[in-house]
């Protein structure tokens, strides 16, 4: 691995930022086509009701209405990410299962007309009793939400490694605690939008998405159209954060309307609809039991976690597993049992999130701190003692190839004088640490790999074609940077065609933490293959050895005698002359155990590599109001080599906002099945004035497989920033939290509980 890099590893300006600062970047709602119609969706007013009939006739008579549809216009196909989770028809005909569920829709010449027409759709319902609490939902006699899932248990992930009961019995110290976390909103700035355009047998679609190929596949199934006729196109995305990976009801709605009307249809959800009717983040209840030796070594973990899954499976098996895996990929568990239940309730569908597993992760970490204190140790010591290192296997048999966990722990703790401050916190102050690992990719069958096609153009520029997706995190710029490094041409000479299902190949998408490790690796290999061709012709023309050729600044030259040089464009033209233009492909398929399955076989290699990170939060508590302020936050991240350190820092800083400060303010509030804060006023996305001083530290361990040594960048902090704040509050109050987020009212309860205990 060479270290004299020109572009990779540098703080370069992102390729997409010019369009974004000038207001010219196009998002779905910005699209306009001739004869385009506006769509509106009629949604369920009930959390649980049988559909007796839907009458669209009067709506269709409203002047300006061009199409109206309901579930009765579909093929009745149900989608599921897995064969065993096919329960989501997107437009139901049997019953509605949450308030806000898509029931019917119209397309009209404008939004006003479409809204008016909705009021003429008649739906007959028979009300059913509903259930909103997952524990209630699991108990006997609760309303059955899907016939196929007994006791509303959607997914049960059971993992059992070693001899947990025996190890617990032999442990020196055992502790069991239960933690609850409220559900959250993704609150991406862009409300969901879809444009569907059906013409000549082809359906073209634009929507913010984290994986166009899997989206097209779902729609091809739902619409019974051949996959090549469903084309999901590239468009900018205003944030995803783990959501928007999967087909959305709106996709089907807009598609059906466009097919019926024979015109392009645009559906833009309101902020409220985006919150009530796309995806939400799981609420959870985690019981964590830990056994330790006197030395602080963890000997056993026993988990029971209940996830409120809302009304449909969605990515259920993954969501039920991920919190456990990111934890077991970080720490050594010789004996571990995990029972994860994803339970249906009459609430909106729940999906994966950048900080999925808040109660589980923060609970584990805070409990570990308490146990450390009991054993006369501190959080740093105990994490270093139990943290995995390079070459080790996780409990479920994933090998960790490169691991900078210890480095992130020691760097972050030294920077913050952690040990001293944790042992004896000043009054009203606390410090906390959260660690985590992230798998860079996971088993997705034949979709686990990525490939890239690169063509060298006659003026010396290159065009990259890849399925890679960017939801705002900078993936597009990243692969252009990689190509620029290898091909020796500046970033502005490289065009990118990506995330378009017609022209690009499969890619794991932007939701499996694999864009750098898998997507950029495919681009690297393709460009290296193209480079070989360039080098070979240049060497021949310049009369030097191939190994002596350097590509830089649009030139091919001899490293030994730099005067021997020629523009790369000449090399490319020469290739055209020879009737053999320079085109190349590259594929990267990670080393994953494909026998591994989330429910039926939860062991084997999970991903090609893993990233690591440590967050340290410092908090200050107003002991009269319980209000927390976070003066300082430090995050250390092993992302392998950062391809663009500025972008990785940006991911870390955003994580400190979205997962860190979220710990003290973000939660979905409910009134039965009604979401009380489906907006950006009462759902509290932290603001600039709520942010701490941030210090980000990148620990550049080099991954042997990653492109230029790179791994996933940023998500580890998103997964552990929550823990750091929660642990800091536990440190400050000297008392364990049980309910998250740590809003002032909950913090005051903790403080008062402590007072009572003292008396």
């Amino acid at each position, binding site marked *: 691995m060479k270290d004299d890099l020109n572009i990779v590893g540098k703080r370069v300006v992102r390729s997409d930022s010019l369009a974004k600062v000038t207001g010219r970047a196009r998002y779905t709602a910005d699209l306009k086509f001739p004869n385009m119609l506006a769509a509106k969706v009629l949604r369920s007013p009930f959390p649980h009701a049988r559909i007796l009939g839907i009458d669209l006739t009067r709506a269709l008579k409203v002047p300006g209405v061009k199409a109206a549809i309901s579930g009765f216009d579909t093929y009745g196909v149900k989608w599921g990410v897995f064969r065993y989770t096919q329960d989501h028809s997107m437009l139901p005909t049997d019953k509605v299962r949450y308030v806000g569920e898509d029931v019917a829709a119209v397309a009209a010449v404008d939004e006003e007309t479409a809204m008016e027409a909705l009021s003429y759709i008649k739906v007959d319902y028979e009300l059913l009793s509903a259930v909103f609490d997952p524990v209630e939902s699991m108990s006997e006699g609760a309303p059955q939400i899907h016939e196929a899932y007994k006791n509303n248990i959607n997914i049960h992930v059971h993992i059992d490694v070693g001899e947990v009961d025996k190890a617990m019995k032999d442990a020196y110290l055992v502790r069991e605690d239960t933690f609850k976390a409220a559900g959250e909103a993704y609150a991406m700035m*862009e*409300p969901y939008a879809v444009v569907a355009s059906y013409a000549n047998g082809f359906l073209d679609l634009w929507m913010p998405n984290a994986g166009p190929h899997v989206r097209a596949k779902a729609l091809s199934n739902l619409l019974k159209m051949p996959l090549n006729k469903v084309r999901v196109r590239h468009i900018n995305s205003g944030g995803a954060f783990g959501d928007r990976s999967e087909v959305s009801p709106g996709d089907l709605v807009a598609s059906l309307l466009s097919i019926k009307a024979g015109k392009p249809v645009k559906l833009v959800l309101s902020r409220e609809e985006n919150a009530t009717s796309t995806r939400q983040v799981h609420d959870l209840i985690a019981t964590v039991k830990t056994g330790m030796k006197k030395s602080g070594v963890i000997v056993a973990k026993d988990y029971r976690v209940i996830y409120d899954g809302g009304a449909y499976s969605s990515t259920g098996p993954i969501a039920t597993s991920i919190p456990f895996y990111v934890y077991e990929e970080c720490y050594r568990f010789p004996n571990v049992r995990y029972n994860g239940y994803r339970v249906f309730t009459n609430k909106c569908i729940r999906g994966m999130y950048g900080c999925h597993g808040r109660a589980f992760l923060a609970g584990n970490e805070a409990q570990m701190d308490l146990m450390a204190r009991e054993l006369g140790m501190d959080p740093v010591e105990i994490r270093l003692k139990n943290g995995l290192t390079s070459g080790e296997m996780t409990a479920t048999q994933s090998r960790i190839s490169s691991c900078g966990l210890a480095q992130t722990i020691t760097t972050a703790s030294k920077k913050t004088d952690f040990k001293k401050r944790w042992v004896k916190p000043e009054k009203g102050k606390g410090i906390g640490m959260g660690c985590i690992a992230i798998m860079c990719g996971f088993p997705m069958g034949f979709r686990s790999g990525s490939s890239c096609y690169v063509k060298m153009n006659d003026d010396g520029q290159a065009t990259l074609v890849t399925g890679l997706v960017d939801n705002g995190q900078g993936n597009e710029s990243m692969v252009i940077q990689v190509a620029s490094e290898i091909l020796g041409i500046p970033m502005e000479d490289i065009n990118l065609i990506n995330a378009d299902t017609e022209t690009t190949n499969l890619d794991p998408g932007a939701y499996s933490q694999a864009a750098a490790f898998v997507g950029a690796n495919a681009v690297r290999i393709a460009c290296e293959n193209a480079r070989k061709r360039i080098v070979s012709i240049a060497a021949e023309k310049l009369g030097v050895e191939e190994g002596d050729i350097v590509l830089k600044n649009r030139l091919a030259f001899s490293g030994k005698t730099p005067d021997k040089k020629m523009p790369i464009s000449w090399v490319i033209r020469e290739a055209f002359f020879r009737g053999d233009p320079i085109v190349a492909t590259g594929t990267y398929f990670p080393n994953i155990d494909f026998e591994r399955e989330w429910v039926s076989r939860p062991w084997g290699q999970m991903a090609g590599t893993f990233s690591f990170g440590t967050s340290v939060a410092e908090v200050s508590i107003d002991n009269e109001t319980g209000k927390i302020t976070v003066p300082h936050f430090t995050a250390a991240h092993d992302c392998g080599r950062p391809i663009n350190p500025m972008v990785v820092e940006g991911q870390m800083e*955003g994580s400190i906002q979205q997962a860190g400060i979220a710990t003290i303010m973000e939660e979905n509030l409910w009134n039965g099945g009604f979401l009380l804060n489906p907006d950006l006023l009462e759902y509290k996305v932290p603001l600039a004035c709520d942010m701490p001083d941030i210090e980000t530290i990148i620990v550049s361990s080099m991954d042997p497989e990653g492109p230029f040594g790179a791994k996933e960048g940023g998500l580890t902090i998103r997964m552990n920033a929550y823990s750091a704040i929660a642990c800091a509050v536990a440190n400050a109050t000297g008392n364990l939290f049980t309910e998250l987020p740590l809003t002032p009212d909950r913090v005051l309860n903790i403080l008062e509980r402590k007072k009572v205990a003292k008396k």
Partner: protein
Amino acid sequence: MKRIKVSFSVNGEKVTFQVKPYETLLETLRERLDLIGSKEACGMGACGACTVNVDGIPLRSCLVLTPEVNGAAITTVEGLAKDGKLHPLQEAFMEKGAVQCGFCTSGMIMTAKALLDRNANPTKKEVIKAMSSNICRCTGYKKIIEAVEDAAARK
């Protein structure tokens, strides 16, 4: 409903439209003028993604009726670059890495512009206060604040 004749200038160009009395400035900019840089993220004035400058004041264009801006001078993010040269704020946002998904970016830049127009040398505290009018979900604001400070220093 009777349409209303409204004239105003957008990015230095005078325009006249017969608008719906209940049309928002955001709709007029996006639908009639194709100025799509201003985004509708909440539609309720809570987030600032639709911020434009009207007579030098930053306004949430989703809360403004177009008839209200009759005679006003409006600047949108599309009007910041002059003669092919980006505004210092645009340059600073790019170079400091203050842009991620980009959906809040126009509003952020327009809020910052109004700040720098009324206070050319703001303190960091003043920058944070002004920028706390807008929501960003990606960046943690650090690089946005740095970009605004940097742009102020460039001027």
